[in-house]
């Protein structure tokens, strides 16, 4: 998917400040996410990647700063009440956060029921094709989350995030805890879905392979702000100790080589 640099950004963060007690997590953080791009957000543990995502989706009220998502201002707790906005995004939490009392298919139907008056049959059909789209076998539909493996839970949670055909998808470490094959499969899936459904994706990850495989742009959080953003190639030339360590360490090089020799058949 080509990104549209000239269009207004889907997510616009200016001067974000987040504090917990006297500990400052973000100090004047700026970030733009352009329409149609997959933006990877990386940073060391505890640099506030998840806090940034929670601020953008309104689960965390920032101390200062302006956040605009799809042209609408985000103002902390009230945002989750703004159904016009919440129905245009899907969120995949790190642990999946599937409702444990509902089956996978019923989980997918929850947002459909909340926002629309569809017939039961159409809802069941939508749930069924979403299950298939994220690469789950049909048997997974009537299963409860506790009966699924970690990778299947992630896929099921992705199906729920995609239930409303959102424009914007938030993914918090989608490949964490998956084996490399499952992680590759998940990367491919996200890339394919992003292309077919025209999604803009905000992706938090630690996974260098994911960055190389699917991200159009990468933003690095360090020193309480975004210190750099650009393509992986641009960032690996960026002169900052953490960025250099990250992209040029043994794992970073391995991921770059793997990508160079065996590009995924996507994008």
């Amino acid at each position: 998917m080509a990104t549209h640099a000239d269009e207004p950004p889907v997510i616009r963060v200016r001067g974000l400040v987040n504090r917990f007690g006297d500990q400052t997590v973000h100090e004047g953080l700026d970030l733009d996410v352009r329409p149609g791009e997959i933006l990877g957000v990386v940073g060391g543990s505890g640099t506030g990647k998840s806090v940034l995502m929670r601020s953008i989706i309104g689960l965390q009220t920032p101390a200062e700063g302006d956040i605009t998502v799809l042209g609408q201002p985000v103002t902390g707790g009230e945002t989750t009440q703004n159904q016009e906005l919440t129905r245009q995004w899907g969120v995949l939490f790190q642990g999946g956060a599937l409702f444990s009392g509902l089956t996978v298919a019923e989980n997918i139907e929850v947002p459909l029921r909340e926002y629309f008056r569809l017939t039961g049959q159409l809802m069941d059909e939508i749930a069924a094709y979403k299950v298939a789209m994220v690469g789950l076998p049909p048997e997974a539909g009537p299963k409860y989350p506790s009966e699924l493996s970690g990778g299947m839970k992630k896929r099921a949670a992705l199906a729920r995030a995609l239930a409303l055909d959102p424009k914007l998808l938030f993914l918090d470490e989608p490949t964490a805890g998956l084996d490399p094959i499952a992680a590759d499969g998940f990367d491919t899936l996200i890339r394919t879905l992003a292309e077919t459904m025209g999604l803009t994706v905000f992706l938090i990850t630690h996974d260098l392979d994911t960055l190389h495989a699917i991200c159009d742009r990468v933003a690095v959080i360090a020193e309480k702000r975004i210190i750099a953003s650009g393509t992986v190639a641009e960032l690996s030339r960026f002169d900052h100790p953490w960025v250099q360590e990250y992209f040029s360490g043994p794992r970073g090089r391995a991921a770059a080589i793997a990508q160079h020799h065996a590009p995924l058949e996507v994008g």
Partner: protein
Amino acid sequence: MSHPAPPDAPVPDMPVLSIRLADGVLAFDGRLTIARVSETERQLEDMLARSPGPLLIDLSGLTRIDTVGAWIVHRLLRDRPGSGITGASADAERLLAEVSAADRPCEVRPVTEPFILRELRRLGEYVYAFRDSAVSALDFIGLTIISAWRAIAAGRGVRWNAVWVQMEQVGVNALGIIGLMSFLIGIVLAQQGAVQLRQFGAEVFVINLVGRATFRELGILLTAIMVAGRSASAFAAQIGSMKLAEEVDAMRTIGLDPIEVLVLPRTIALILMMPLLAFYASVLGVVGGGLFSWAELGIPPATFAQRLREVVPMSDFWIGLSKAPVFGAIIAIIGCHQGFQVTGNAESVGQRTTQAVVEAIFIVIVLDAFFAVFYTALGLS
């Protein structure tokens, strides 16, 4: 919500969907997205019911389509052989290909059986579950005793630090609510007793009523019920969450015995705290009754205390107190046992917590009845 545009006036850039069906051509104009589909689904069904047979689906007027829209089109193509599409954009083609690749029937919820069968099955399961639960609770009591013995025999002794922490949580932190409850019960008992005894001019026997009932039965029974509600639930939820987070398994792999680490301290704490709580509750119950007698019946506290010593035999006090450690042990073990029964998901923690409270209260009341019969048979009435 539902206000579809008139079929003859499609306005491409408005966020609406208009549907026209004429001469076997079904034309969508506007936005074929989930929001518009949900508004026009029934209208579309009515139209389609009037026109069976193959359709030519005209998508040239679409401004936007999502997977739900593509699914609607795909379903028509699938269910009406010989149908075709025209004027589809590249986006629409791609989404159509995507949803048709994903068209696999899939159950939404587990298969359910007929009502009668299901209820019969549940009754049977309930009976078996009751038996299994009783057996496994007995099993668990045995395990706890063996663990205690092993810990002592191996010279490890009891984890007193954990016991202190639990004693604070189950005992000290419960003082407020148990004291308030006993005090109020004492007042109610004296007040209701006074109303009845006044008819015989025997108000002074309120002291007998409050003193004996509180020390022998109510102080300990109500405390046990309150502790069952407070601590059996806490134990079940704590251990249940630890089981979900695989902490219990982690303990086993490190070589720690979860029963020794989790159950013994809780059980010992409750065995030690229950007599104290019961005594405290009884005293506050008597204080409540005494204050009421003073205020309403004019019996001064000194007289009340004097009379209390005459009418309440020490055996009442010892009988009441003798039950406390037993209740404490059983409440702790039932709570922990239910905690260990947690499997799978958060819902299970809730079920087991409820189960722990219900079971603990039930067993406490049954045991109390046994004690009453037992002590009466011993002639200690």
